[in-house]
């Protein structure tokens, strides 16, 4: 039994090997690109829509709403990145009901690649929002001594992002494979259905976590900072009440 689709060879030309991970990534990319190209070829603004345009509009509106709910800001700049992550992971997980298909997210290489994308996107969005100095000041936020912990946290959360997705998808295919050899009739189908649910939830969670990380690098820090500064200036004026209030808020 193979632990990841990296070792399954689809095609070998000379010294180049096309493994199942890359092949099925291309299949998913092709499917999504061709699908959305076909649908968006004839977009209409009238009241009567084609059903596929309706589907895409529902998806895009849903993603926008979720991003707005998570980050409490305009979803415009983040829609492309987070939406692409969600759609790619969701489609590659959902296609696992097709026989012979190996989900590319069941390989640590793919999930590590996606996590590296998030790892790079966080400082990019952060710098675009608050400038180089403003972004890197986050690393010494409470005190200077927190610098190594902040850097370590940045790396460990990226690794966690990759291993979580890999472990969930891999466990789905693995459990189906093991059950096929023990109780081959009905039970693997139930686990496969559960795997679909897990795949969808993991896609959602990956996208939400990416959004949370990006948002924490941009907006949230600034708001906390503003609140604290406000409290400090109020305290300097001799008013005790706002400080207590901010303490209560922190306690929550």
């Amino acid at each position, binding site marked *: 039994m193979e*632990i990841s689709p990296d070792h399954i060879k689809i095609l070998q030309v000379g010294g180049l090997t096309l493994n199942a991970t890359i092949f099925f990534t291309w299949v998913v990319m092709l499917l999504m690109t061709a699908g959305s190209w076909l649908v968006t070829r004839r977009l209409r603004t009238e009241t009567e829509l084609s059903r596929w345009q309706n589907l895409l509009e529902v998806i895009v509106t849903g993603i926008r709403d979720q991003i707005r*709910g998570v980050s409490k800001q305009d979803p415009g700049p983040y829609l492309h990145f987070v939406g692409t992550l969600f759609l790619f992971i969701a489609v590659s997980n959902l296609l696992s009901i097709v026989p012979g298909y190996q989900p590319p997210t069941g390989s640590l290489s793919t999930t590590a690649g996606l996590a590296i994308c998030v790892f790079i996107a966080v400082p990019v969005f952060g710098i675009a929002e608050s400038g180089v100095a403003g972004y890197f000041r986050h690393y010494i936020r409470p005190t200077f001594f927190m610098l190594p912990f902040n850097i370590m946290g940045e790396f460990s959360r990226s690794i*966690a992002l990759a*291993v*979580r997705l890999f472990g969930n998808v*891999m466990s789905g295919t*693995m459990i189906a494979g093991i059950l096929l050899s023990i109780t081959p009739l009905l039970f693997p189908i139930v686990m496969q259905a559960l795997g679909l649910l897990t795949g969808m939830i993991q896609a959602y969670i990956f996208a*939400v976590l990416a959004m949370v990380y990006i948002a924490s690098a941009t907006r949230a820090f600034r708001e906390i900072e503003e609140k604290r500064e406000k409290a400090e200036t109020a305290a300097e004026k001799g008013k005790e009440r706002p400080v207590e209030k901010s303490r209560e808020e922190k306690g929550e």
Partner: protein
Amino acid sequence: MDNLGLIAIVSIATAGITIAIGSIGPALGEARAVANALSAIAQQPDEANTITRTLFVSLAMIESTAIYCFVVSMILLFANPFWNYILGKAGG
């Protein structure tokens, strides 16, 4: 006993212990999180959306420790590097 048998015994036993012990903590943690989220939803049904979303994200975070244990035990069972090393040395 030869090295190969020893590695097999230790790997299988460790894989079982890893997933058994490693799933206790996350199970308790997730149960607490879900129970608290349910009582929060019961108190504030209007905030159910936000609570559910936060619950899902935090469940994924809690669950990831169990997933790490699962990945380690799967590596020990199906892609054991020590096993492959000994096999490669015996073959080559």
